[in-house]
């Protein structure tokens, strides 16, 4: 999966699950997801479960930190690094 595919997938999931009715263009690659309150802790866990399933990766408990998940760009980088290491 390339970065653009991962970004699209993560964006669609976040819009559908947590931002019903939001205009897609308002959710940019750099929108702060955790520090701006778009994902709470439960939503973060749901997103992680989705990424694990659809990207075929396993995310360790220690990796559930804002540095890996705070924006769509960071999510794409993180997922790609996980895919490269497996």
């Amino acid at each position: 999966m390339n970065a653009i595919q991962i970004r699209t997938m993560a964006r669609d999931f976040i819009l559908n699950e947590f931002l019903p009715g939001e205009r897609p263009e308002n959710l940019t690659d750099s929108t702060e997801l955790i520090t701006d309150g778009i994902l709470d802790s439960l939503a973060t866990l749901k997103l992680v479960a989705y990424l694990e399933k659809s990207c075929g990766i396993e995310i360790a408990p220690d990796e559930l930190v804002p540095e890996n998940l705070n924006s769509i760009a960071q999510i794409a980088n993180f997922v790609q690094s996980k895919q490269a290491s497996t």
Partner: protein
Amino acid sequence: MTVAALHEYLEQSARRYPQTCAAVEASSGRQITYGELDALSDQVRDHLRRIGVRPADRVGICLPKSIASLAVLFGILKVGAAYVPVDSLAPPARNAFIFNDCGVRAIFVEASRAEALRCELARLAAEPSLLPLDWSDGPSPLAAYLAGVEAGGLAVEDESARPGPDNLAYVLYTSGSTGQPKGVMLTHRNGSSYVDWCSEVLAPDENDRFSSHAPFHFDLSILDIFVPLKHGATVFLIGEELGKNPARMASIIAERRLTVWYSTPSVLTLLVEHGSLDARDDHALRFILFAGEVFPVKHLRRLKAVVPRARYLNLYGPTETNVCTYYEIPQTIAEDRSAPFPIGRACSHVEARVIDANGRNVPRGQEGELAISGAPVMLGYWNMPERTSAAFHVDSSGRWYRTGDVVIEGDGGVYTFRGRRDRMVKRRGYRIELGEIETALYRHPAISEVAAIARSEESGVSIKVFYASRDGHALSLIELKRFCAHNLPAYMAPDWFSHQQLLPKTSTDKIDYQHLMRME
């Protein structure tokens, strides 16, 4: 073993068990013995005295949960001052309001947050001493800070203060209906009467290992901090980040062989649903305690199946009294039960009554407001004499705190919770005044009207906000969430937003909440 002042629990255990591990930072594994914690908090006491903190002063704590924040807390008590803990991740303006409201003399603050807090305090013309602890320097920021300020200090008395049992020990701020948090004033006796009740029920000893999940500004932490330290047991400090990570918490429960767990039901549900708690059968848990909200029976049943040997206690009480009733969940839960369990009987250190609006007793079996008197009941709200007197019913039988919770008394003095008589709700253990959410959103320049309501669903309480905007258009949901994240503590964030052209009104032109409750 009753003490006059809460820090005596630590001092006594430090004499009996100097080499025993008192506290562990669960995420890093760093630990401290009783002897070391007592000595470190003595240093904090000496430093506070040198900068002019006196008995009966207030000192703020704006730190992540850690060995450092635990030592700071005891150092403050040892001066004879009261500690005022806040959520270090909450908006700095809110924390500055709290610290200014109760006039703290000094604040221990995480260095990276000091500047933002200083700016907000300056806007209120408040100038307490800020004592910054810097975690980027290493894992022992308190020792590093104290080493840096030690040189050239004045000689101070090296005995801890001996405050009386009715002196202020801590001030816990809770959500306020007028839009500003209010400070619940609690004394050493308020705390110690509860800690001693916990000893009676839990019968802990030095082999116990307690969780500390709740943040220090949350009243659940009183049990976590003082009960293990009274008995020479070990407390495992679970910080903000770890506390949201069910898989890591589940492995700590198993690997560290925790014996007493205390948290909100939401956290226990998270552990069962997302923590793979069921993959481990090596639990040492003797007690699972929960408080702060109703535990949906569906999730409680699953938890009991995973950890069958523990005893389960439902603890109930507002911050103003801490735990005042409790109920032990029976060994087996009937298959067809879906009604939540009662909040239970009055604890041995309080008296409870069910009263009507005029303070008269309500016959058993009828709804009324639960009122509590006795040793753990707060002094009052900080600097709010009118709110304080409105919170109490005083008659010949004493001074009764009106909990605002509507209950029914059943057989054997067992109380069942029925609802609230005002607009306070509890979600994930936190009490939230819906008015505080509304006040925050009214500050948004594009919003003209706001109403927040709470709904109880099987999965818990959710908060829905209806709003109207000045230009008649819906705001971006991202913008609304961002605004809340920067103006409210995270625990108050609404679950849903609904844009309306105008909010429905009653005949007297007030927002019609009944109508909103019926809207989807």
